[in-house]
């Protein structure tokens, strides 16, 4: 490892690339070919491949290279790629990591995963079939998640007799698409993955082509230049305390170069300081480039925590609580504007919601289509609001500070990948007016602790009946209350919205905000709403003070509700005349730990209402008798 080998090794760099294209266009075959020709397929693996080719092979050749990369049982049996696979090979000049991605549209989220860390994308096209929707989709996704270098590999040219006209036509069509998309650098290469033409060795079949072979392009393409030009960003992952007095901020240089003695600013707080120590993997350094994991010492004690970013004072990120972003939606549950998700940007997590969807992108035509939601695998442009201001860059300026994921708070699923277009400034200008009479003072005048009694349950469960009795009992005790009922608000405040999932979310969001104002006014607010989704109920709990949200689950089972059917709605729903009816063809998510569960099959509404009153007394919301 010393002498010549070490010198040779010192120049070796790493290139991550992504292999995209439609199913059956030959992605796995091309990767298998690259691995094999670079000596990355060991003899025992090759022997296993020969066995598997006889058993599962689809290529009609003795060796089906695709089977080298399709690793999961389901994949081998169905002959398709489900999830992104990573493979490794090395040439004398570079080490390569290949992300092989699924061709099927239904596995788009895996495709985005594979592309997101790639320096370069190969988009593979079958010369006989030309550009397919999935070809375009992969190019769009790779572009969207930040890939700046593209190779258009026109495959299976042997099957069209190496016809240059076919190649030229495909390249022209893709160049036009790339122009509309503002794709980065693009190199087109004619090849046959199965036979190896222009993969490693130049092919005699393409005398009309004088560009590089695929491997020689991969070995020489410069993908590092732009990274060092980005402004300084150090993501703080954690605080290290080597001794009682000193602190080191452990993190990664996400952009620019960090030098000892640099003046830096902490975002989002805006505090200034100087770098007086840089530790890399345990060793003191004078500087660290983009991509390096560092521990940074500062010249003064500041409040710096996980999620903060050290930035160049003259090239600061945006600090905003509203911004526009591109989203790739990755969940079977569609995007619901207004619903609260967890947004993770860099290493910082913050509550956020989509405040509006501007449009959806048609993958083939690149046209903008109007929509107010996004379904699985759809790409759109949205406005996003965060619960508190966060430091971020537009994705074009900072790859690691301008991309984020959205997480569902209940399933913990990653529901979207997003990239920041730009911060919206208007949020910063809307400040809250400080009021002279405080909330506590208003409540004290009424000799009660305000709260929201939230009755949730199926239609016909008895929510409104019980809530009305509770309201009457509280009035009898001279308590100050207000009752918000689902049917009533839909005649006024919410008469402009319907019953789709997105509309239900907005319906409940508005009621929550109104309830919050009434709590602020010192009232005990009774809310009677089906409110089928956990996320929305939790969102209301979150905007209130701890203890103010009292969730009352009226747990009457569906059969009982349907048998009662006081408004005849179940009959209509069963008859198909009332779509999206909760319990029939729209889900009801029961509370997991309600403050109170009322079973209306076991007791009458009077007795159940008394249990609510008892709970208010126990919690100290009201006094134990009418005297308050």
């Amino acid at each position, binding site marked *: *490892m010393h002498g010549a080998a070490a010198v040779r*090794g*010192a*120049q*070796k*760099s*790493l290139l991550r690339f992504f292999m995209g294209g439609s199913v059956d266009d030959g992605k796995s075959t091309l990767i298998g070919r690259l691995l094999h020709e670079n000596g990355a397929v*060991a*003899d025992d693996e090759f022997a296993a491949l020969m066995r*598997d080719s006889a058993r599962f092979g689809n290529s009609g050749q003795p060796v089906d290279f695709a089977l080298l*990369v*399709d*690793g*999961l*049982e*389901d994949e081998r049996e169905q002959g398709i790629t489900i*999830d*992104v696979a*990573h*493979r*490794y090979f*090395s040439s004398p000049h*570079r*080490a390569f*990591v290949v992300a092989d991605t699924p061709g099927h549209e239904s596995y788009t989220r*895996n495709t985005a*995963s594979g592309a997101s860390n790639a320096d370069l994308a190969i988009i593979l096209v079958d010369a006989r079939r030309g550009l397919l929707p999935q070809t375009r989709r992969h190019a769009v996704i790779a572009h969207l*998640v930040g890939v700046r270098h593209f190779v258009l590999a026109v495959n299976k040219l042997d099957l069209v007799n190496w016809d240059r006209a076919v190649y030229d036509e495909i390249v022209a069509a893709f160049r036009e698409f790339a122009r509309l998309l503002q794709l980065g650098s693009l190199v087109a290469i004619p090849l046959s993955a199965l036979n190896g033409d222009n993969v490693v060795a130049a092919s005699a079949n393409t005398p009309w082509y004088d560009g590089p072979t695929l491997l020689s392009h991969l070995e020489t393409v*410069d993908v*590092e*230049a732009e990274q*060092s030009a980005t402004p300084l960003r150090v993501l703080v*992952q*954690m605080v*290290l*305390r*080597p001794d009682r007095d000193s602190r*080191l901020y*452990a993190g*990664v240089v996400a952009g620019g170069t960090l030098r000892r003695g640099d003046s830096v600013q902490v975002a989002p707080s805006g505090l200034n300081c100087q770098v007086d120590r840089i*530790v890399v*993997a*345990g*060793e003191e350094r004078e500087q660290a*480039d983009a*991509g*390096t*994991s560092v*521990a940074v010492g500062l010249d003064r004690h500041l409040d710096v925590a*996980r999620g903060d970013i050290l930035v160049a004072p003259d090239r600061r990120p945006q600090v905003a609580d509203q911004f526009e972003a591109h989203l790739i939606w990755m969940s079977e549950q569609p995007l619901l504007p207004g619903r609260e998700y967890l947004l*993770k940007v*860099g290493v910082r997590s913050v509550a956020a919601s989509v405040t509006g969807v501007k449009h959806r992108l048609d993958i083939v035509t690149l046209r903008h289509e109007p929509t107010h939601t996004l379904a699985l695998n759809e790409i759109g442009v949205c406005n996003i609001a965060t619960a508190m201001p966060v430091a971020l860059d537009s994705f074009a300026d900072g790859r*690691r500070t301008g*991309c*984020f*994921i959205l*997480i569902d708070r209940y399933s*913990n699923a*990653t529901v979207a*990948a997003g990239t920041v277009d730009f911060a919206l400034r208007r949020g910063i200008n809307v400040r809250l007016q400080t009021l002279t009479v405080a909330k506590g003072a208003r409540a004290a005048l009424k000799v009660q602790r305000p709260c929201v009694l939230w009755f949730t349950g199926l239609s016909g469960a008895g929510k409104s009946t019980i809530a009305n009795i509770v309201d009457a009992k509280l009035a009898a005790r001279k308590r100050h209350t207000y009752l918000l009922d689902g049917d009533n608000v839909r005649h006024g405040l919410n008469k402009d919205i319907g019953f789709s999932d997105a509309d239900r979310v907005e319906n409940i969001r508005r009621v929550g905000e109104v309830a919050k104002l009434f709590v602020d006014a010192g009232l005990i607010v009774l809310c009677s709403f089906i409110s089928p989704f956990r996320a929305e109920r939790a969102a209301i709990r979150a905007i209130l003070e701890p203890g103010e949200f009292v969730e009352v689950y009226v747990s009457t089972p569906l059969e009982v509700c349907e048998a009662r059917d006081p408004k005849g709605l179940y009959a209509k729903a069963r008859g198909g005349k009332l779509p999206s009816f909760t319990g029939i063809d729209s889900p009801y998510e029961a509370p997991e730990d309600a403050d109170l569960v009322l079973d209306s099959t076991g007791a009458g509404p009077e007795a159940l209402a008394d249990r609510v009153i008892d709970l208010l007394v126990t919690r100290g919301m009201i006094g134990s008798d009418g005297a308050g």
Partner: protein
Amino acid sequence: MSQSATTEHSVAAAGRGRLTAHLARLEAEAIYILREAAAEFERPTILYSIGKDSSVLLHLAIKAFAPCRMPFSILHVDTTWKFRDMIAFRDATAERLGLNLIVHVNEEGLKQGINPIASGSQLHTHVMKTVALRQALDRHRIDAAIGGARRDEEKSRAKERVFSLRSAGHTWNPRQQRPELWTVFNTRLGPGESMRVFPLSDWTELDVWEYVAAENIPLVPLYFAADRPVVERNGTWIMVDDDRLPLNTGERPQSRRIRFRTLGCYPLSGGIESDAATVEDIIAELRESRFSERQGRIIDHDGAASMERKKKEGYF
């Protein structure tokens, strides 16, 4: 900045001049992942198998938090059939580095007399490794187990995420993996769920060895060629590490110059004939090698896609 200038610059900045740009990038990425594991979980633990990958992982974990102490405990699931050299090395390493080492043995399995010889490799591996690991993770309430597995080892591993979710019961669902975008890791866990974390995901076997060479990382001597008492079984050399290995009639241990590419339970680990006695020799040998690393691993060949099945059940 031209590419060669960048590379020279990175090496100069490395101060040591030992790590290539490629290894420096892998090191930085692994440290980032280890710090995320430390920051996001309550009881993150390194699953330590004593092998070369675990040794590199441990080395990286110590560097990631230097000059502070590494915040991880170290878990070794002992089948009681590991090479004696491995156990000696484990204890010496724990002593040298002052590690908080947890050793877990599936005592019920031991009582039932499960062993790799009489029970067969499949049952032994299931009870003494897979089940034992689940026991240890539950007993110590480990919410993130950090392992040295690499995607280049095996085809189902090639599909694994860096932060890989396990459902309650420690099972892996390869069809429903969370998307993993950029380096923004979704580390959220539901009740009973846990995470496996693989900081060496993108390292190859050769990367590991070159890093071992550059960083002078101590390893179990079994990786290096020496004359060892062996018997030939199924075309591979099995070392007679103690008197528990039953010999077939007429079979007599012979001395061969061998070394191991991977280490596990000694009756299930095949050695290769080799003269590679130093790290440099091994790197040279690997560059020439025509066989994959797990070739000597008997347990991986127990059926097509057998690794995937074991992983679905909770094998690391």
